[in-house]
């Protein structure tokens, strides 16, 4: 495997490579030419106002949305190639949704084992061993037999993360994983994600949690109106944004009250 990696060289160091990606819903062009890539082991946070196309970008990576134009390559496989078996690619990509999307008719443990068994064809003992290890990893080993409805939002989201991890993904996509949570539950989920980042997982995270982005991300991408406006280290993009649109957005996210006041007072929005 190590020899493979060295021979495949630069191609293989990219976990995600997106070129000229466009996506329209009918008349509405939501992504208007996106070029970017994520290196193996890198953590990239995507920020931007509502409707800017962040979710659509993420969903184009594992083809939950069919791109209208452009190339998307994941771990060396071009997913936009019509001949590629997308089910084979998707099992290598973990996805975590804003609304958790746990399977309500299955227990936490069964949520983690069903795809292992039906997709990866692992036998039950092995699937359960891996599932329990992942529940442990997200701090929920005591909830194996609970149904999703019996769990708090934060616990559900951690089970959802463990479900994705049980497939041994090469990279993980997160779409606003903490946006649906009560503030006091956000911390547990972010802690799990921080742990994943430390373990070297490749992560593409859409988030409004600026402190998480600043602390964990190797790179921050700011999107607005279906294009990438600027990207760079968190210090640069969040700390010293170059573009007016980025500054306006950050002012609103970092201090909603102050931004409103300053908008009303019609003074500069940046703090």
């Amino acid at each position, binding site marked *: 495997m190590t020899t493979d990696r060295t021979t495949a060289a630069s191609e293989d160091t990219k976990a995600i490579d997106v070129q000229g990606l466009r996506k329209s819903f009918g008349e509405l062009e939501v992504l208007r030419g996106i070029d970017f890539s994520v290196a193996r082991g890198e953590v990239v946070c995507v920020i931007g106002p509502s409707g800017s196309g962040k979710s659509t970008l993420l969903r184009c990576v594992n083809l939950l949305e069919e791109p209208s134009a452009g190339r998307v390559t994941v771990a060396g496989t071009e997913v936009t190639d019509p001949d590629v078996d997308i*089910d084979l690619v*998707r099992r*290598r990509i973990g*996805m975590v949704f804003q609304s958790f999307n746990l399977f*309500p008719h299955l227990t936490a443990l069964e949520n983690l084992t069903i795809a292992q068994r039906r997709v990866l064809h692992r036998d039950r003992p092995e699937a359960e061993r891996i599932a329990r290890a992942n529940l442990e990893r997200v701090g929920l080993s005591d909830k194996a037999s609970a149904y999703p409805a019996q769990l708090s939002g934060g616990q559900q989201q951690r089970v959802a993360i463990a479900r994705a991890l049980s497939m041994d993904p090469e990279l993980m996509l997160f779409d606003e994983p903490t946006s649906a949570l009560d503030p006091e539950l956000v911390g547990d989920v972010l802690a799990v994600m921080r742990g994943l980042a430390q373990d070297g997982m490749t992560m593409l995270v859409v988030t409004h949690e600026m402190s998480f982005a600043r602390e964990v991300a190797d790179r921050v991408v700011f999107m607005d109106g279906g294009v990438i406006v600027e990207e760079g280290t968190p210090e640069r993009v969040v700390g010293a944004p170059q573009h007016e649109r980025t500054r306006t957005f950050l002012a609103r996210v970092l201090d909603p009250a102050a931004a409103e006041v300053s908008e009303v007072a019609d003074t500069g929005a940046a703090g």
Partner: protein
Amino acid sequence: MPLSKRRRARLVRGVQYGVLVVAVVVFALLADWHQLRMAFFDVEVAKALFPDIITTALVNTVLYTLLGFGFGLALGLVLALMRLSSVPPYRWIAVTYIEFFRGIPCLLVFIALGFGVPLAFEVALDMNITVMLSLGLVGAAYMAETIRAGIQAVPKGQTEAARSLGMSHGRAMVSIVIPQAFRIVLPPLTNELILLTKDSSLVYLLGLSLTQFELANFGRDALNEHKSLTPILIAGLLYLVITLPLGQLVRRLEARTAKAR
């Protein structure tokens, strides 16, 4: 002095009760109780019905119903999936089928399968098969629509989560969507079972032998024999023995679904 609104309302209600009581008393006085009892509940006739009305008639009603329901459910599921398919011809076939069999009387299907097919194709279908097909073909049309609505009521995020784990469309349907859809459609499907229980009486058309009698047929046969309405009353009560618990089950299931939301 004009009556207040409330006192007038009370007066009107009092008059209504009065009329009702008078009507009941008059009916009770005029009715020939002896004749009524002989007609509707002649104990001798009732005794003669047992145990056959249970061991043959009730059992056959349940058997015919379950045959029709089982076949209808399987066909209904296939039709629902075809109706939701991305392949247009599948959708057209399913829609045509559903509209056709929802639109014609079940009776006609019984006649077609019971007499038409044997005459036209010179084959004699087994009685149970005829009943299963007749009840099932019609029931499937209704159940297909119910199941389709149930599948569509499962949030889209469920399919997306399943697909993002690498499940194929079919696998996601079987393991994730359909189990949830069935919970949603359990109450309406139970209603369908109640309707089928009653529709199973249509087999009388087929000209049954004694051991094939179900409740309605058995009741009619006994009516002719004893010149009494008692068998009909008892057959009706036995239908209720089946349908009332099912109705209760529907209410329970609905309450459970309401609570789960």
